[in-house]
C-alpha cells in the first residue's frame, strides 16, 4: 500500500478517493515510464521537469529549473544603482516595468529620496500597462497549451495595443528601463491620455470576446474545472503568491495589502475565486486584466496635469548604510527586492524574490495524481515564467 511515491502526497490527500491518487499509492517501478518534459519540449519553456507516468496518471514529478540562470543578483554587486536597471529587467522582459519598480522603491529608500507626485502616477500607469502586456502573453501561451490556436493569436495581437502605448511612453517596445531611482525616465508624450483611454475602451470590448470564446467554452471548462485543486491551507503552506494565491480563495494583493506610491488613492477590488482549481487560476488573471483597465483609467484621471517626474540625482549616488525591503504586485505575484548597502555607490547584496519561483513549488503537489492531459493546464496556470525563476 505504501511506496515511495505515496510519501510525496500530503496527509489530507491520502483520505480522498481519487482514482489518480489510488494509482499513485499502488504504483510499482516496473510499470512506470519516465518522461522528460523540457527543455526541448513545446510544453515547458526554458525549464525541465521529469515526470513518471503509470498509464495516463502522473505519479511523480521533479521540477528542475536553472537552465537560464544568469546570476542577476551577483551582477548587481558590480554595478552602481543606476547601471543595474537595464540588466535587472532581463529576467522577465514582458513585465520589465514591474521588475524594476520594486528595485527603484528599495533604492529610493536607501538614498532617502521621494518621487514627485506626477512621477508616481506615471510609474503606476506604466506598471499597469505592462501588467496587461505580460498577462496577455501568458494567456496566449495558455491558449496554445490547451490547443486553442485562436486564443494564441488574439491576445498576441491585442498585446500590440499596450506595446504601442508603452513605446510612446518609454521609447522601447519591450525592455523599457523606465523606472529609475527617483522617478521615471521621461514625461508622458502629448496626446497619450486620449490614446490610452481609447485603447482601453477597445480592449475591454475584446475581453468580453475572450470570455465568450475561451472561458465560457464548455470544452475549456471541462478540461480545467476540478483539476489540480490547491486548497486554501495548502496554498498558504506552500507560500504561493499572486493569481495562484487569489485563485485559492485568499484576497491577497500587494497593491491593496501594502499600498505603494499612489495605489492607496485608487479604488479597486482584489479579484479572487474560491474554487481553488485550474480554472480559477486561469480566470483570476483575466479578472485582473479587467480590473487593471479600471485602475489605469482612474490613474489617468487623478494624475496631476504638470510637474516634475523625477528627482535629479547626483551622479553615482551613494546609499546610507543599512538595508531596504520593498515589494510590488507584478503579473505573477509579489515581487520583492532586499538590498543591503555598505555606504558605497554599489549595493552590497541584492536579493530578488520572485513570484514564479514561489509558485512552481506547488507543481509537484498538483501534478501527482493527475492525468498527463492535465499537465499543460496545471503547469501554465501556475503563472510561472521560467526565466524569472532562474534569475
Amino acid at each position, binding site marked *: 500500500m505504501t511506496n515511495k511515491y505515496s510519501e510525496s502526497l500530503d496527509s489530507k490527500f491520502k483520505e480522498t478517493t481519487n482514482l489518480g491518487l489510488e494509482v499513485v499509492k499502488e504504483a510499482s517501478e516496473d510499470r512506470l*515510464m519516465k*518522461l522528460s518534459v523540457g527543455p526541448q*519540449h*513545446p*510544453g515547458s519553456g526554458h525549464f525541465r521537469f521529469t515526470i513518471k507516468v503509470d498509464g*495516463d496518471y502522473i505519479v511523480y514529478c521533479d521540477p528542475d529549473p536553472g537552465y537560464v540562470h544568469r546570476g542577476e543578483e551577483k551582477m548587481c554587486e558590480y554595478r552602481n544603482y543606476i547601471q543595474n536597471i537595464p540588466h535587472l529587467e532581463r529576467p522577465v522582459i514582458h513585465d520589465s516595468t514591474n521588475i524594476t519598480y520594486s528595485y527603484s522603491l528599495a533604492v529610493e529608500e536607501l538614498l532617502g529620496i521621494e518621487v514627485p507626485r506626477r512621477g508616481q502616477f506615471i510609474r503606476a500607469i506604466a506598471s499597469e500597462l505592462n501588467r496587461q502586456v505580460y498577462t496577455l502573453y501568458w494567456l496566449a501561451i495558455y*491558449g*496554445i*497549451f*490547451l*490547443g*486553442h*490556436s*485562436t*486564443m494564441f*493569436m*488574439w491576445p498576441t*495581437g491585442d498585446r500590440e495595443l499596450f506595446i504601442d502605448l508603452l513605446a510612446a511612453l518609454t521609447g522601447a517596445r519591450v525592455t523599457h528601463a523606465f523606472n529609475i531611482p527617483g522617478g521615471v525616465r521621461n514625461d508622458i508624450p502629448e496626446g497619450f491620455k486620449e490614446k490610452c483611454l481609447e485603447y482601453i475602451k477597445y480592449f475591454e470590448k475584446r475581453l468580453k470576446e475572450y470570455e465568450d*470564446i*475561451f472561458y465560457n*467554452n464548455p*470544452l*475549456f471548462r*471541462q*478540461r480545467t474545472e476540478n483539476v489540480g485543486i490547491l486548497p486554501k491551507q495548502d496554498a498558504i503552506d506552500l507560500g504561493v503568491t499572486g493569481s495562484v494565491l487569489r485563485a485559492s480563495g485568499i484576497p491577497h494583493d500587494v497593491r491593496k495589502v501594502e499600498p505603494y506610491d499612489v495605489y492607496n488613492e485608487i479604488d479597486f477590488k482584489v479579484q479572487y475565486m474560491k474554487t481553488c482549481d485550474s480554472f480559477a487560476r486561469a480566470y483570476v488573471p483575466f479578472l485582473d486584466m479587467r480590473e487593471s483597465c479600471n485602475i489605469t483609467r482612474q490613474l489617468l484621471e487623478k494624475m496631476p496635469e504638470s510637474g516634475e517626474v523625477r528627482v535629479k540625482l547626483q551622479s553615482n549616488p551613494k546609499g546610507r548604510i543599512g538595508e531596504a525591503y520593498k515589494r510590488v504586485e507584478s503579473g505573477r505575484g509579489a515581487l520583492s527586492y532586499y538590498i543591503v548597502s555598505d555606504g558605497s555607490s554599489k549595493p552590497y547584496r541584492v536579493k530578488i524574490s520572485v513570484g514564479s519561483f514561489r509558485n512552481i513549488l506547488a507543481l509537484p503537489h498538483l501534478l501527482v495524481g493527475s*492525468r*498527463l*492531459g*492535465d*499537465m*499543460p493546464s496545471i503547469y501554465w496556470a501556475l503563472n510561472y515564467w521560467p526565466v524569472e525563476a532562474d534569475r
Partner: protein
Amino acid sequence: MACGGGQVKMTTAPKDFRFGSFVGSIVWLLFWIIVIVSLVGLPLIFIILFYIPLPYSNGEVITPYLFLSMIVDPTRTIPIIKFLIHTDFFRAAVFPGFMYAALIAAATIFVERKFLAKMQLRIGPLYAGKIEGIFQLMADGLKLMSKEIIAPSGADKPIFWTTPILFVATAAALTALIPVAPGWVVSDLDVGLLAIFAILGFFPLIALLFSWSCNSKYPFIGGLRALHQMIAFEIPFILSALSIVLLSASLNLTDIVEAQYAFWFFAIAPISAFVFYISSLAELERVPFDLPEAESEIVAGWLTETSGMIYGLIQLGTYLKLYVLAALFVILFMGGWMGPQIFPQELIPAFTGEKIYNATVVNGIFWFTIKTFGMIMLILLPRGINPRIRIDILLHTGWYKLIVLSFINMFIVLAMIYGGVITPGGLQ
C-alpha cells in the same frame, strides 16, 4: 558595392559568369539530347511499337503518330479523350480517384490556412505565388521533399519506412469507393459502405505500428492515444451510418444517393448526422480531438519522429481521409450529387458538331464538389473555436453519449418504417 550607402546590386548569377559559355553549355546539352534520343530513344519506341498491340479508338490505331496529327487537326483529340476517360486507369488515377481527391486535399489545406487566419485576425500565407499565397502548399511540399529524413537510431527501419506509404495508400484506397456523379465511381461495390468502414479500420493499426517502430516515448503514447480514440469512435461512427442503411435498404453508396431523390436523409436522421460529424472529427484527429498530436503534452504525438517527406506523406493521407469522410457525409446525409440542374442540357460547340459533355454528370460533379467543400469547411471550423479535450472525456463521449444518441435516431427511423410513414428507399 560598399556596405554602407550605395545601391547593392542584387544578382543570382555566379561571379565568373560569361554569357558565351552559358549559351555554349545549352548547345552542348541539346547536342547530347539529340544524340541520345536518336540512338537510344527512337529504337526503343520502335521496338515497343513492334511488339505491343496498340489499342483501337474510333477505328484508328493509337500510335504516337496519331498524337502528332492532332497538332494539325485539334478535333481529332475528342475521340481519343473520350476513349481515355472511360479506361479504368483514368478513373483510378485521375477522376474520380486519386488526383481529384488530391486536388481537393490541396485546396483544403490552402483554404484551411486562409480561413483560420481570417478567424484569428491575421493574414495567413501571402507571398508564395503573388496572389494571396496560393503556391504556399507547393513551396511547403518542395521544402519537405528537399529535407533529410531522419530515422531514430533504435527504430524498426522496415516498418518505419513503409508505414507512411501504407498510410497514403490506405487513404487513397478509400477514394476509389466514393461515387462522385452517376456512374462515376472507380469501384461500385454492393457493400460499399461496409468496405469504407473496413478500410478505415486500418488506420489505428498503422498509427500504432508507426509509433511503435519509432522506439521513442512520445510517439508511443501518441500511438496508444490514436488507437484508443479511433476504436472508441468506430462504433458510434458505424451505428450512425446504420440508420441510413435502414432508410435506403442498401449498402451500395450509389443506391444510397439515388434513394435521396426526394429529400435528404438529413431531414430524418439529424441526430445520426451529428454523431457522424463528431465521430469523423475524432477519426480525423482534428481539433478538439487532436489528442494523438497534442503538442503541449506529448510533443507531436505519433508524428514526433517524422521528418521530411515521411511527414508530408502522412499529411497527404490525412487530408485525403478528410476528403473521403466529408464526401461520405454528403453521400449519406446530403443527397450526394443530387441538386437542381444548372448546366444546359444541349451545348454543342461549333467545331465539334456534337455534344461534348453529359449535362447530368457535370451537374452531379458540380453539386457534389460544392457540398463536399462545404462539409470540409464545417470540419475545419472547430479548429478555430475549441481547445483540445482530455482523453477520459473523449472516451466517455465516444463510448456512452454518442452510441446512445445514434441508437435513438436508429429507433426513430425504425419506428417510422414500421409505422408506415416511410419505406426503405424513400417516401411511401
